[in-house]
């Protein structure tokens, strides 16, 4: 029988996994609301309060996630493929370079972007034939 094979007590209100998932989901929602409340605060003491509550709720959400992961109650999504990561790095470097050029055009070489970078521009060390 399917239900008798489960370790959980059948008379339980809900499975541990479902109960913890509900708490985790509400912690995530509460963190989002605290973050919004922080950005919308006008009084410095209220902003400080919401900042503290955001950080503390984020801490609890992380702890609960780790607990559920240890108990194999939470499956993370599958690993990103190397070729996808490589492609995104290449695109990101492109974006970064264009953003810097844009800043340089607008600021006329003033400010922090005027300095020549002391590290050479990153070159991908993998030359993937699919994306080159």
């Amino acid at each position, binding site marked *: 029988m399917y239900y008798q094979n489960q370790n959980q007590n059948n008379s*339980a209100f809900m499975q*541990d996994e479902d109960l913890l998932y509900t*708490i985790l989901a509400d912690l995530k929602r509460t963190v989002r*609301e605290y973050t919004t*409340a922080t950005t919308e*605060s006008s*009084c410095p003491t209220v902003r400080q*309060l919401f900042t503290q509550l955001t950080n503390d709720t984020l801490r609890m959400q992380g702890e609960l996630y780790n607990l559920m992961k240890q108990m194999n109650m939470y499956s993370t999504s599958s690993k990103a493929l190397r070729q996808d990561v490589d492609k995104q790095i290449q695109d990101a470097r492109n974006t970064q370079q264009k953003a810097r050029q844009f800043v340089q055009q607008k600021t006329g070489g003033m400010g922090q972007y005027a300095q020549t970078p002391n590290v050479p521009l990153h070159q991908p060390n993998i030359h993937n034939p699919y994306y080159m």
Partner: protein
Amino acid sequence: MQSGQMQAITGKELEYIVDSISNEDLLIKQCAATAATSQNPAIQQACQQYIRSMDHHLEMLVQALQQHQSLAPNQPQQ
């Protein structure tokens, strides 16, 4: 907290504080129900810790309302 920074709270801030009190209240009840239902000591212990933290959050939120109570105007302002 420096009392010099204290300003009357806006209607929006009041709504956020009240919504946050509801959120913490719901989380406390969920944790208490989970601690009572689960047979797993690790889950029970974690839930008890969360309840203490959330109860502290509730207290902070209510105190924030009280601290701003006397600053709130009695009449709507332009």
